[in-house]
């Protein structure tokens, strides 16, 4: 498939700058949880499916893993779920966020940007990205569960949903054979990137 070097070079220059700019505005993370009334497991499932600030990076991660082949997909599946679980437990036990809210935008930008650029990454690098994503968002989820005085069992619902979503989506992307279908995945990545960049702007403006 024909690549577009100008887009890739632009992203290489733009991504680090945007991430640094975002981190210069440390706004407190304000995670929120969904209440279904059906217990903590369902609360956790609903949280992932309804909270775009967690769902979109997960989807972008799954798309990126799928674009990079079955090995990257398998590693992402387990790395993301395990790191999310571990970080969630740690976040719950400490109860302190200590992370700027704008850091969530960085996961949108990095994962959306890499998906849009469709750069071939090594499976290990994809796995590292999955671990970082899991640690970051899992930690924030754990802290939110602690601060809301909910049951930690909700984390099981969150992690299970992530596992299922990543398994289905990355397997679906891996099975794509036609070039134009891969570009549809890249379009989805560009949407995640764009939403993350605008979200960063709203957060900096104080309307996130």
């Amino acid at each position: 498939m024909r690549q577009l070097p100008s887009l890739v070079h632009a992203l290489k220059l733009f991504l680090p700058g945007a991430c640094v700019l975002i981190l210069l505005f440390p706004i407190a993370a304000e995670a929120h949880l969904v209440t279904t009334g059906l217990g903590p497991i369902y609360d956790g499932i609903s949280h992932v499916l309804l909270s775009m600030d967690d769902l979109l990076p997960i989807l972008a991660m799954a798309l990126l893993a799928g674009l990079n082949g079955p090995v990257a997909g398998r590693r992402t599946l387990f790395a993301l779920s395990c790191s999310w679980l571990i970080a969630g437990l740690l976040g719950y036990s400490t109860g302190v966020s200590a992370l700027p809210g704008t850091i969530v935008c960085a996961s949108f930008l990095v994962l959306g940007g890499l998906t849009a650029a469709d750069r071939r990454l090594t499976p290990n690098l994809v796995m590292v990205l999955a671990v970082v994503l899991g640690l970051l968002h899992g930690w924030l989820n754990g802290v939110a569960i602690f601060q809301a005085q909910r049951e930690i069992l909700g984390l099981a619902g969150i992690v299970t949903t992530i596992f299922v979503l990543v398994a289905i989506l990355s397997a679906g992307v891996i099975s794509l054979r036609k070039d134009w279908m891969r570009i549809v995945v890249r379009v989805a990545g560009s949407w995640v990137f764009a939403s993350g960049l605008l979200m960063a702007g709203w957060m900096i403006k104080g309307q996130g």
Partner: protein
Amino acid sequence: MKRFYCRPVNSKATLLTIILLLATAIPAFAHVQQGQAQGFITGLHHPVSGLDHVLAMIAVGLWGAQLGLPAVWMLPVAFPMMMAFGGFLGLLGLPLLGVEIGIAISAMLLGFMVAREAKPSLYIAVIIVAFFAIFHGHAHGTELPPGQSGLLYSLGFVVATGCLHGIGIVIGLIHKWQAGRILLRVSGAAVAMGGIYFLWSALA
């Protein structure tokens, strides 16, 4: 072979269960998360509320369809990212001169490209589209009503813009036929005329 069958429904038991459930009904404690879904709907609605934006977005799709692969997909990848960059600049309070003029010129130029069936190199096409995307993002990306979710508004905005590109690409499929090619060029000319009107309005 194992046979599957449905057990007959016990209508008395079902009725009794329904009455029991209704008798012990608990009032619903629904709560509204202010501005969540509304933000998404507002974002979806916003790009289609301005004809200048709509014309330019559809023209991007039409032009992509004329250019063929891979431009037909590259333009919709580049556009939302640069549009978000424009919105980001607006949110940071960085001014952009002549936003309305830029949007009008984008409709005019893109319409002109479609009307001429211009086929520059992929890089030039992407640069043209990406440059004007900044103006569209700056003008429309920052108009969040108070109390609504910024992320969902942005997501709706980006999705609606992508759908407008998609509409343009689908219309552009008529490019396969000779009559369709002529029709596309005529619609490009109509978009360009619209752009001239918007430019006149912006300058007036």
